[in-house]
């Protein structure tokens, strides 16, 4: 009987996680470059009470199905769905959207390299391209102070127009990184990821090359959260949570019935 209570509890825990993941998606609905996550569940172990295939007589007849009692549910995984987000035109010359695979490389203050899909860059006091947090884009790109216009083309070349010069001059090349298994990246917040053993090493290349997405200046990749889908999932998760709580109630009532036995 206590199994009913335990099974109901595993169901409630699982749906709690589901709601947590969905609420994080909804909270990041407008986060640049955010990739939505999904919680997935698996059934727990089974107790075999009567083994399928056990013989039921000495005439060679066997029990076709047996009795298997499941013990509930568990969270299988929470994974990112790395679908391309829509592009939003911002007109800002330092906003870059990646139209395919590849992560921008960001140098963290501790010297480590982090990876990001968020291409909203700015220029710091030294003319270097940095993220909103002030972390430098890698390879470093410095915009000369006398530049009047900056063009970032699809292949990641950064070209500036210097006053009184007719030709554009190239001041840098943005490079992006690919991973064997993007889902294995470690999210550290601030739209940043770190490489892990599961993700494999970063393979750096120029945007627009084979396998690397081209860049688009003056646009940002929006989050790929589909709000209709999230709200529907939220309703489902909440109802599932309620039903599991009802299971616990039913188990409890049955226990009460038993304790009333004299």
């Amino acid at each position, binding site marked *: *009987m206590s*199994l*009913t209570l335990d*099974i*109901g509890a*595993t*169901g409630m825990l*699982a749906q709690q996680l589901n709601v947590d993941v969905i609420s994080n998606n909804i909270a990041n609905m407008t986060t640049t470059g955010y990739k939505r996550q*999904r919680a*997935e*569940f*698996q*059934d*727990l*172990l*089974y107790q*075999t*009470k*009567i083994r*399928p*295939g056990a013989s039921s007589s000495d005439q060679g007849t066997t029990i*076709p*199905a*047996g*009795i*298997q*009692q*499941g013990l*509930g*549910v568990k969270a*299988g*995984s929470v*994974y990112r*769905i790395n679908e391309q987000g829509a592009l939003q035109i911002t007109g800002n010359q330092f906003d870059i959207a990646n139209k*395919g695979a590849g992560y921008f490389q960001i140098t963290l203050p501790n010297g480590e390299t982090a990876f990001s899909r968020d291409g909203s860059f700015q220029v710091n006091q030294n003319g270097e391209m940095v993220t909103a947090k002030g972390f430098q884009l890698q390879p470093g790109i410095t915009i000369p102070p006398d530049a009047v216009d900056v063009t970032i083309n699809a292949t990641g070349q950064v070209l500036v127009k210097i006053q009184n010069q007719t030709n554009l001059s190239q001041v840098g090349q943005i490079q992006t990184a690919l991973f*064997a*298994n993007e*889902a*294995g990246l470690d999210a550290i917040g601030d739209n940043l990821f770190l490489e892990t053993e*599961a*993700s494999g090493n970063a*393979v750096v290349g120029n945007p627009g090359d*084979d*396998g690397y997405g081209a860049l688009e200046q003056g646009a940002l990749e929006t989050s790929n959260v589909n709000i209709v889908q999230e709200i529907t999932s939220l309703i*489902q*998760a909440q*109802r*599932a949570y309620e*039903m*599991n709580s*009802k*299971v616990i109630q*039913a*188990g409890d*009532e*049955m226990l009460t*019935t038993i304790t*009333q*036995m*004299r």
Partner: protein
Amino acid sequence: MENITYIGISHQVALQQQIEVTANNIANMNTPGFKANNILFTDYVTAPKGGEAIHQSQDYATYSDLTIGNLIQTSNSLDFAIHGDGYFTISTPEGARYSRDGGFALNLNRELVTKTGHRVLNENDNSIVVPADAAQIRISDDGTISSEQGDIGRLKIVNFDNQQALKKMGDNLYDAQGQSANLVVNRKVTQGQLEGSNVNPVVEMNRMIQLMRMFQSAQKILQNDHDRQLGAIQKLTQPA
């Protein structure tokens, strides 16, 4: 004299089993590829000497409802759903296992694996390796996975003569219990979708309420019988 008690208890034990199965179904309402379980009962007949036969209830078997669950749109290129009968073949350290849950991922070696890291097998019983520079993964109806650079492999989708005899192992996996796996010829696999659990919440909640009430009425029978026995003892022991 105690027959009523024994029958009542056998009924309650059976109901308890059934509510545990129902609780497990409700807990797995959102588990991809999960098949709802049901329990079967039979009567266990005892014929005391000179008396009428007594039928007690005894649990007999669990069986899975094999109807196909709803398809959930996930837009993940590594989520696959089988339309119709069939199971994906998964390689685990304990041997081949089978699953209806097509939510896969890539591991470090770019092999197609389940969410628990077990390799998904192709028709030659090898793992399915996606080339490092493949950007788009597509699947055709017959389960052939390809990228823009060509075919990668065909998912091994099998079925069994007796699906009820498959043993649930947890982690959305089944053990074949020695049955031979037959390749499914007419198959259809779609991408970006997962097969949801086929648990019908309305049915399960209804069944749970029903079971709970039956449990209470069985309790009432026990209670009445208890009172009857008590009354009998009191009357019989009264001096005439």
